[in-house]
Each structure stands twice: as structure tokens, then as C-alpha cells.
């Protein structure tokens, strides 16, 4: 039953969910602010760049099979320095997880259930996340597999019913995007969606046998999710207009609100919100899985990782209550600090790992390490 490995399909679905994750709520407005009606071009650029970034990560995955990120740290940097790095990554992921929890919590609080206290929603969600990690990665992957058709269905439902409200002229004039703007936008997309993928997916690396089908699924997942986001940005621009999109906190939700079919099917944005819930749930659970695995690995209790779910969940919960004191802070942090550290965790860190892997491979087998699979030729 629980062989402990994922299928290619499950991997693709997890990648899609992860990338769409919080991005779907927030990024369209950033991009619209940046390039107005050219926002979708930025997203497209980001998708392409992002998929390349994923491919780059795959190089590292392929060369270090059978080990998750934290074991890699210890192997490549030495035991103690490795543990320090692992702990740092885990702690950083705790911060990210609490941010994601905040995002979904504030979304629910402000848009759907304003009377419910923040703590209650956060606790409910966190409970489900902890339960998910305790059930195990394979169970979670299967659940994602089951929910995937529904996500697709909701997405299509959303697009279908919003068609009457689309005004293509809001896309004009096309390609008025200047170079720096494009770079910024692409960077924003990649930092939000693609860079965090490294630490999260590397943490579950053990469960992924990297044959060709897996690699293909992984990359397809990256591209498909990006494309879905392109469509969403397009729709958002065409329905709300670039100015409005830039100003809204949750532009895609506002678009969903406009669905009005024959005066009967209205106010069904909650159903579309389910889409957001599902993808964010899985993003959060994947983060949490990385946290639990990382902390457990650091302290040498890898087998009992699941038991740490409750206390670490508590920690993430508490942090989520005050990690963003207010909206201004959120915007500033997300643009500045997040970009910096995402670059470090998404570019610098993997590059170092890759370099270290290649170096180690050249020195042959070392004591305390496993035989290294040096992948297929040079990168």
C-alpha cells in the first residue's frame, strides 16, 4: 500500500497545486501594477523562466537520488554544518508556512466569513494540515489526485461563466511593456511560485523515483500551472481592467464575484473560492511536510518525523497570527525581503548544492556517503 513512492501523475498534480498556491490570489495585482494591461506577458515570461528553473532543480534531484534535502545537506557539507543548514531551512519554512496560513486566513476572514475570529480559522486549517502530514505523503498525494479533477472543473466553470463579462479592448494597447518592467514582473512570478519549490520538493525527494516519466510530469506540471495563471491574469485584466486589477487585494476573487448567469447563478464565488482553498491547502501541507522532515532530520529522529506535527503546527499557528502585523508591512515584506531570500533559497543555495555534488562526484566515493549517482553526463 504505502510504498512510499509517488506516481508521475501525483507529482505533476502536486507541482501544479504548489505553484498555483498563493500566487493565484495575489500575483495578478502585482503584475498589473507593474505593467498594466501587459501583465499577462509578465506571467508568461515568468512561466517560461520558471519552468527552466524547475529543470535546473531537477539536475540536482537527479544527482542525489534517494536522499532528501536535509540528508543532502549533511552529506555535502559535513554533519554539523549540514544540520545547521537544515535547521535554518526548516525555520525559514516555518516562517513561510505561517505566511501562507495568514494569506488564506485573511482571505477567508475578509471575504467569506467576516464574523469568525482569525484564530478559529487558522486553527481549523492548521488542524487539517497537521492531519495531512500525519497521514503521510502518499496519502496526501492520492488525495491531491482525487481533488485534481474538481480543481480543473472549477477552473473551467469559472472561466466559462465569466465569458460574458470579458471586454477584450481592455487588453489594448498590447506590448507596451518596457524591458525593466518585464524583468521585474518575471522575477516576481518566479520568486513567488517557482523558487520555493526547491526546498519543498527536495524535502520529499526520497519518495520520488526520477525516471523519465517523472521528469516529464514534473516539468509539465510547472508549465501547466503557469499557463493556468496566464489565463487567469488575462481574464482578470479583461474583466476588471488593468487599473482595477492592480488596486484589488484579491483580484481573481473579485472577478469570480461578477459571475451572474441569468440572475440565478450569482454570488457563487464561494464555490470558486474552494479552488483557492484546495491549492493553498496543499501548498501549506507541502511546506509543513518540509518543516517536519527538516526538524526531525536535524535532531536525528527522522523516523518519528510525523510525531512532531502537533507542536510544530502550534508554532506555525501562533506565528501566523502576527507574522504580518498589517497590510502595508505585508506588501513591503513581500516585495523586498521575500524576493531576496527567495533568490538565495532558490538560486544560490541550489547552485551551491549542485556544485558540491559535482565536486564530490569527482572525488569518488567518500566515507560516510552513499554511492553518488552522477546523472547523465554534464549538466
Amino acid at each position, binding site marked *: 500500500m504505502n510504498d512510499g513512492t509517488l506516481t508521475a501523475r501525483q507529482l505533476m498534480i502536486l507541482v501544479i497545486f504548489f505553484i498555483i498556491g498563493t500566487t493565484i490570489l495575489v500575483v495578478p495585482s502585482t503584475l498589473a501594477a507593474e505593467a498594466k494591461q501587459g501583465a499577462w506577458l509578465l506571467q508568461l515570461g515568468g512561466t517560461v523562466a520558471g519552468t527552466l528553473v524547475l529543470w535546473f532543480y531537477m539536475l540536482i534531484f537527479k544527482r542525489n537520488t534517494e536522499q532528501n534535502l536535509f540528508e543532502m545537506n549533511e552529506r555535502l557539507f559535513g554533519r554539523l554544518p549540514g544540520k545547521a543548514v537544515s535547521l535554518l531551512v526548516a*525555520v*525559514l519554512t*516555518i*516562517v513561510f508556512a505561517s*505566511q501562507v496560513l495568514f494569506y488564506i486566513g485573511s482571505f477567508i476572514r475578509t471575504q467569506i466569513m467576516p464574523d469568525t*475570529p482569525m*484564530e*478559529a480559522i487558522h*486553527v481549523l486549517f492548521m488542524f487539517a494540515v497537521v492531519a495531512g502530514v500525519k497521514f503521510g505523503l502518499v496519502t496526501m498525494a492520492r488525495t491531491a489526485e482525487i481533488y485534481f479533477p474538481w480543481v480543473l472543473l472549477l477552473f473551467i466553470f469559472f472561466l466559462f461563466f465569466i465569458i460574458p463579462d470579458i471586454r477584450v479592448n481592455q487588453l489594448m494597447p498590447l506590448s507596451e511593456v518596457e524591458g*525593466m518592467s518585464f*524583468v*521585474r514582473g518575471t*522575477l*516576481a512570478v518566479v520568486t513567488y511560485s517557482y523558487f520555493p519549490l526547491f526546498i519543498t520538493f527536495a524535502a520529499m525527494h526520497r519518495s520520488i523515483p526520477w525516471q523519465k516519466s517523472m521528469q516529464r510530469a514534473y516539468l509539465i506540471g510547472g508549465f501547466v500551472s503557469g499557463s493556468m495563471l496566464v489565463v487567469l491574469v488575462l481574464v482578470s485584466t479583461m474583466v476588471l481592467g488593468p487599473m482595477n486589477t492592480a488596486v484589488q487585494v484579491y483580484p481573481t476573487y473579485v472577478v469570480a464575484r461578477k459571475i451572474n448567469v441569468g440572475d440565478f447563478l450569482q454570488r457563487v464565488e464561494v464555490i470558486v473560492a474552494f479552488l483557492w482553498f484546495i491549492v493553498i491547502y496543499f501548498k501549506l501541507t507541502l511546506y509543513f511536510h518540509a518543516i517536519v522532515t527538516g*526538524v*526531525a532530520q536535524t*535532531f*536525528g*529522529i527522522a523516523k*518519528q518525523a510525523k*510525531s*512532531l506535527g*502537533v*507542536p*510544530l503546527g*502550534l*508554532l506555525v*499557528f*501562533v*506565528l501566523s*497570527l*502576527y*507574522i*504580518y*502585523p498589517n497590510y502595508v508591512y505585508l506588501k*513591503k*515584506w513581500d*516585495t*523586498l*525581503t521575500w*524576493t*531576496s*531570500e527567495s*533568490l*538565495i533559497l532558490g538560486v544560490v543555495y541550489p547552485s551551491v548544492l549542485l556544485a558540491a555534488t559535482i565536486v564530490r562526484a569527482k572525488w569518488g566515493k567518500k566515507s560516510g556517503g552513499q554511492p553518488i549517482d552522477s546523472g547523465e553526463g554534464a549538466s
Partner: protein
Amino acid sequence: MITASILLGLSCLVGAVELTRLWTKKHKRTVAVYAAVLIMGNAMIVLRGLGIALPNPADWLTAALTPLNNMLLHLGLIES
């Protein structure tokens, strides 16, 4: 305050159950880590319930990454 105490109670309850289970299975180190994190979490909840402001790790990150932030701003890769 109420939410804080409920959460506290629940986490201690769950903690007790899980810790006894782990202890009987001789996973001493896990018990230690679990207890440490649990205490940390509960302390934070209590402090927050009492109204004391807690240090924000996001701030630490910002402080640590300030040079990089400035560089990025300078490069025009991000705009505030």
C-alpha cells in the same frame, strides 16, 4: 484569553497522549524535541494572550537581508 487557554489545554492534552505513547516506545529524543517545541509554542500563546508583543522572525529576516534588499532596489529589480 479564552482562546489562548483552550488552545493551551488542548495542546497539553494531545501532548500528554502523544508523549506517553512515544515514551513507551523508547523514543527519548523525539520526546525531548516534541516537548521543547511544545513549550515554545505554548509560551508564545500565553505571552500573546497576555498582550505582550512577540518578536517577529520576519523582522529578523529583513534585518539580515538588508544589504541584498538594497542591492536589488538599486538594480531596479524590485520597486518598493
